[in-house]
C-alpha cells in the first residue's frame, strides 16, 4: 500500500473524524490519499488557522486535534499553534510534509528544519526516515499527544517516503515507549498525608487549573470540594472545571482575579494545587506569594511540582484517579466542618466588600461597557455556549464575567497569549461539536490577525458567531501604557479599522453592528439564530480598564481595584 494511504488508515484507526490543513508540494501524496479518506478535511486559509482550529477541536471535545501543512512556509506557519498547544497542554498532532530525502540538508526549495525549529515546544516529534515508520509513528504520536500531560506532537514526512509502497497491517497491540511511562495513580501514602493535612487546615483553598479539564475530573473535583465546603479558585485555563455558580467558588485568581480569590491565597494556611502550575500570572511576586501556606500539589507532570513554588506534599498522578482517593481518605477522617466557619466568614466578607464591579449607568441604554457585553453574551447564550477568545482585555472580562459552569466551554490561549486564536479555534470547536452554540469573543486587534478564517467558515459551512468587542484599541496594551507608562500611548490605537460589517459581507458571512447597550442582547440573539457565520461588531467604551489587577511584579495583596468613583449603585 502507498505509505500516504497507510497514513490515512492509521489516522482512521485512531478514530480521527476531522482534520484541518492546507496542501502544497511536499504533501501532495498525503492530499492525494486524503481524497479517499473517510474523515473530513477542513480546508483552512492559513496554516496558523489550521493549527489553532486543531487546538479548539481538541479543547472542545477532548479528542486529539490534527492539522496538516506542507514543508517550508506551510510548516513554519504552524509554529505559533504548536507553541500554543505546548503551553496549554492541548492534545494535538501536526503532520508536515518535508522535501524529498535526498534534498534534506541542501537548502532545497521549501525546505525548513521544522523539527529543529519546534524542538523547544513539542511534547515529542518524529522525523520519518523509512516509510514503514509512518503507521507506527502515527500511533505513537496519538498516544503521546493524548496521555500523561497532553501536548503537541509533530510528524515530519518527506515527500518521497509518503509515495513509497509498503506492507501495511493494522496495528493491534498497544503503544509501548520505553522512555514514556506517566504515573497516573498517585501515591496512596501521600494522598493519606494530604487528607490529614486538609483535616487540620483552618484556611484551606483549592487552586485548580487546566489539568482538571484535561483529566476530565470536574465531577471528582466537585465531590472533593463538597466533602467539606472547601473554597475553590481557578486559573484562566481551569475555568469551567468547577461551576462558577457553585457557592464554594471564589472566582478566578491571578493578575485579573477576584479580590476574594487572591486574598484567600494570600491568607491561606493550605493550598491544594490541582493541575495548575504556579505561573507568574498567578503568583505575582514569587517571594511574597502565599506566605502562610503549605502546599499540596497534585499534577500528572512531576516536573511541575516544586518548579516555581515548593510543594510540601507532592502527589504525581491523574486528577481523575487521585481526587476520588483523596475524597475517600478525607471523608474517613470525619472532621468537624465548623472549623471552617471563621474562614468562610472572612471569605464572604471579602466577596461582599470587594465584588467585581464597573459603572453600570449606561447598561440600560447608551454606551456599551465591555463588562456589560459579556453579561449580555451570557444571557443571549443562556450561559451555555462554547466560548473561544482572542487575547486582551475582552479575554479577561469574559473570564471574569461569563461564569463558566461546565468544562470545555471556555477555550482560550492562556499560556502563550496568542492574539488571533479566537476565530480559528472557534472553527475547530464547532467542527468538533456541531450541535453546540460556538461564539468567538474577539478583540479588534486580535481578530484581524486571522480574519482570513472567515472564508473557511463560509466555504466549509461552519456557522460560528464572532462577537467583536470593538474598542478601537489594542486595549490591554493601552491599559498598561496608561497605568504603568504615563499614558504615553504608543502604537495601540487601531486607527482606521476596516468596516467590519462590509468585511463580513465580503466573505459571504452576515455582518451586524451594535452601538447601543439597549440593543445588544437582542442583536446577539439574532446572530445566534441566524443559520450561518456572523460577525457582530459591538462598539464598546474605548478606554475602559480591566480591574481588579495585580500590577506586574507585585504581590496578590497589592492588587488594585477599579477606582471607586466609577461605581454607581
Amino acid at each position, binding site marked *: 500500500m502507498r505509505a500516504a494511504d497507510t497514513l490515512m488508515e492509521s489516522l482512521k484507526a485512531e478514530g480521527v473524524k476531522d482534520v484541518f490543513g492546507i496542501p502544497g508540494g511536499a504533501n501532495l501524496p498525503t492530499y492525494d490519499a486524503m481524497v479517499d479518506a473517510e474523515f473530513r478535511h477542513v480546508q483552512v486559509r492559513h496554516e496558523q488557522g489550521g493549527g489553532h482550529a486543531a487546538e479548539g477541536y481538541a479543547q472542545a471535545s477532548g479528542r486529539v486535534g490534527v492539522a496538516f501543512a506542507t514543508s517550508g512556509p506551510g510548516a513554519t506557519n504552524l509554529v505559533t499553534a504548536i507553541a500554543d498547544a505546548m503551553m496549554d497542554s492541548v492534545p494535538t498532532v501536526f503532520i508536515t510534509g518535508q522535501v524529498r530525502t535526498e534534498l534534506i540538508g541542501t537548502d532545497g526549495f521549501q525546505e525548513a528544519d521544522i523539527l529543529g525549529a519546534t*524542538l523547544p515546544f513539542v511534547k515529542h516529534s518524529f522525523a520519518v526516515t523509512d516509510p514503514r515508520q509512518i503507521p507506527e509513528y502515527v500511533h505513537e504520536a496519538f498516544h503521546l499527544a493524548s496521555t500523561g500531560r497532553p501536548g503537541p506532537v509533530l510528524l515530519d514526512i518527506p515527500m518521497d517516503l509518503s509515495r513509497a509502497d509498503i506492507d501495511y497491517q493494522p496495528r493491534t497491540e498497544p503503544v509501548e515507549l520505553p522512555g514514556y511511562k506517566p504515573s497516573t495513580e498517585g501515591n496512596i501514602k501521600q494522598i493519606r498525608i494530604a487528607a490529614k493535612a486538609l483535616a487540620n487546615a483552618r484556611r484551606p483553598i483549592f487552586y485548580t487549573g487546566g489539568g482538571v479539564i484535561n483529566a476530565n475530573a470536574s465531577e471528582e473535583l466537585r465531590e472533593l470540594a463538597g466533602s467539606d465546603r472547601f473554597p475553590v479558585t481557578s486559573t484562566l485555563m481551569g475555568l469551567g472545571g468547577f461551576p462558577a455558580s457553585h457557592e464554594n467558588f471564589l472566582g478566578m485568581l491571578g493578575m485579573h482575579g477576584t479580590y476574594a480569590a487572591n486574598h484567600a491565597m494570600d491568607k491561606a494556611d493550605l493550598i491544594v494545587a490541582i493541575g495548575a502550575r504556579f505561573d507568574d500570572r498567578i503568583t505575582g511576586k514569587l517571594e511574597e506569594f502565599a506566605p502562610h501556606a503549605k502546599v499540596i500539589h497534585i499534577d500528572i507532570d512531576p*516536573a511541575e*511540582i516544586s518548579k516555581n513554588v*515548593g510543594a510540601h506534599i507532592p502527589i504525581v498522578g491523574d486528577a481523575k484517579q487521585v481526587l476520588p482517593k483523596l475524597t475517600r481518605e478525607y471523608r474517613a477522617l470525619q472532621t468537624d466542618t465548623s472549623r471552617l466557619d471563621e474562614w468562610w466568614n472572612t471569605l464572604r466578607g471579602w466577596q461582599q466588600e470587594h465584588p467585581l464591579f464597573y459603572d453600570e449607568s449606561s447598561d440600560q441604554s447608551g454606551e456599551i461597557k465591555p463588562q456589560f457585553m459579556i453579561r449580555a453574551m451570557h444571557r443571549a447564550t443562556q450561559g451555555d455556549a462554547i466560548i473561544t477568545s482572542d487575547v486582551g482585555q475582552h479575554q479577561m472580562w469574559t473570564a471574569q464575567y461569563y461564569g463558566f459552569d461546565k468544562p470545555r466551554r471556555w477555550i482560550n490561549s492562556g499560556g502563550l497569549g496568542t492574539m488571533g486564536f479566537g476565530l480559528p479555534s472557534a472553527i475547530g470547536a464547532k467542527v468538533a461539536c456541531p450541535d453546540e452554540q460556538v461564539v468567538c469573543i474577539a478583540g479588534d486587534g486580535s481578530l484581524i490577525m486571522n480574519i482570513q478564517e472567515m472564508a473557511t467558515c463560509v466555504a466549509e459551512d461552519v456557522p460560528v458567531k464572532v462577537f467583536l468587542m470593538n474598542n478601537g484599541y489594542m486595549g490591554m496594551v493601552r491599559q498598561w501604557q496608561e497605568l504603568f507608562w504615563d499614558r504615553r500611548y504608543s502604537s495601540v490605537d487601531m486607527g482606521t479599522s476596516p468596516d467590519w460589517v462590509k468585511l463580513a459581507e465580503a466573505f459571504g458571512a452576515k455582518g451586524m453592528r451594535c452601538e447601543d447597550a439597549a440593543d445588544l442582547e437582542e442583536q446577539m440573539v439574532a446572530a445566534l439564530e441566524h443559520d450561518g457565520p456572523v460577525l457582530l461588531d459591538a462598539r464598546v467604551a474605548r478606554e475602559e480598564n480591566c480591574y481588579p489587577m495585580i500590577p506586574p511584579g507585585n504581590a496578590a495583596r497589592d492588587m488594585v481595584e477599579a477606582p471607586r468613583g466609577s461605581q454607581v449603585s
Partner: protein
Amino acid sequence: MEAGTPQVVKLEDLHMPGQLTGRKHILSIQVENKPGVLARVAGLFSRRGFNIDTLAVGPTDDPSVSRITLTLDGAVHPIDQVTKQLHKLVNVLKIRDMAPEETVAREMALFKVSSAVENRAEIIQFAEIFRAKIVDVARRTMTIEVTGSADKIEAFERMVRPHGLVEMVRTGEIAIGRGHD
C-alpha cells in the same frame, strides 16, 4: 491507621526539602540511540538555563542505547528539577544521579605543552608523578595524556601552565557505579 502515615498531620510540621544540594553532580543518562536525541537534551539545558559543566556522549554495551554523562553544579541548579525535565524527553530511558562515594569517575585530557630543552625534564617528571603518558614529541612541543578525576586533571593543568600550555583538550567526565561484592 495504616503503617507509614502518621496519625495526625499538623501543618506546622510539614517541611520542604531544600532544592539545592551544593555539590557537583554527575548525571548518567541512558538515551535511545536515535537521530536528534543529543539536540533535545542540549536544547533542554539551554532553554531552561541549566549550565552543563561537562558533557560526554558515547555508545553503551547495547547498540540501541547511548549514554550521556554530564556534570553540573548542584549549588546553582535544583538537580531534582533538572532530572524531572530530562525525564520528560521521550527518548530518555534512565537517569542516574551518581552518588560520589559509589562512583568511579574518569576524564581524559590531552595537553600540548611547549618543551624547550631547559624544561623538558621537568615536564617529564610531572607526567610521571601524575601517571600521565607522553604520546607525542615534536621539536618544540610535547603532548601528554592524563586520565583521572577532574580534580587531578585540573591539578596537572596548574603544574604545566607556567611552562607554556599550547593547547588543552578534555573529554568531560564519564562515570560508572562501583561494583558490589
